[in-house]
C-alpha cells in the first residue's frame, strides 16, 4: 500500500461519480431493451450495454486504488431506511 499507488482524493471522487453514472446507465440500457420497438435502436442499446460492462470492469479495477478503499462486505453495511 504505498502512497504513490493510491489515487488523489479529487480523482477518486470523480471516479465515484462516473462509476455510479455508468451503473445506472447500464441498468437503464438493459431494461429499456424490453420496451423499444425499433430493432436498430435496440441494437445500439445492446452495444451500450456491452461497452458499459467493459467500462465498469476497468473503472472498478482503478477504483480499488481510491484512498478510501475498504473491504467489500456481503451485505450493505448500513440498514436501508424505510
Amino acid at each position, binding site marked *: 500500500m504505498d502512497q504513490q499507488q493510491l489515487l488523489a482524493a479529487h480523482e477518486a471522487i470523480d*471516479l465515484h461519480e462516473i462509476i455510479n*453514472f455508468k451503473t445506472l446507465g447500464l441498468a437503464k*440500457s438493459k431494461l429499456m431493451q424490453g*420496451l423499444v420497438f425499433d430493432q436498430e435502436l435496440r441494437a445500439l442499446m445492446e452495444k451500450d450495454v456491452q461497452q458499459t460492462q467493459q467500462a465498469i470492469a476497468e473503472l472498478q479495477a*482503478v477504483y480499488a486504488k481510491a484512498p478510501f478503499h475498504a473491504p467489500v462486505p456481503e451485505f450493505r453495511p448500513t440498514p436501508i431506511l424505510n
Partner: protein
Amino acid sequence: MNMQQADPIKMDYLDPANALNMPEMADMTFAMDFLSRVKEGVRNLSVALTESVSPDLRALLRTQLRQGIALHQEISELMIRKKWFHPYGLKEQFQLDMLSLQNTLEISKQRFFPDDTSRKGMFDRTPDAHMGGSEA
C-alpha cells in the same frame, strides 16, 4: 383498489385509440432519453478527465470518452434517419417537441398504479433483515 381518474381526460389508458402511432412515439422518447444519457456521459467523462492525474485513469477515461462520442454520433444519425430528431429543421423539431410534451403530460395525468405501492410484504426477507433494517 381505487383506479378512478382524479382528473378525467378524453381517453383512458385502455382505449385502443391510444395505440395509434404509439410504437413510434415510444421509440422516439426512448431514443431521446438514450441520446441525452450518452451526451451527459460525454460531459461527465470530460469533467472527470480534467480532474484526473494518474496516467492509467486518464488513459481509461480518454478511451471511454471516445467511445461515448462515437455512440452519440451513432444515436443521433439513427434518430435523424428515422425522423425522430431534426437538428437542421427547427420548425419540425419544435413540432415534435410540442407533440411529445403534450403526449407525455397527458400520460402523466393518468392513474396507472394503485395507491399503495409498497410491496415489501411480498418478500421473504430483505438483505439487511439480520441487522434490523426494517425497524430503522
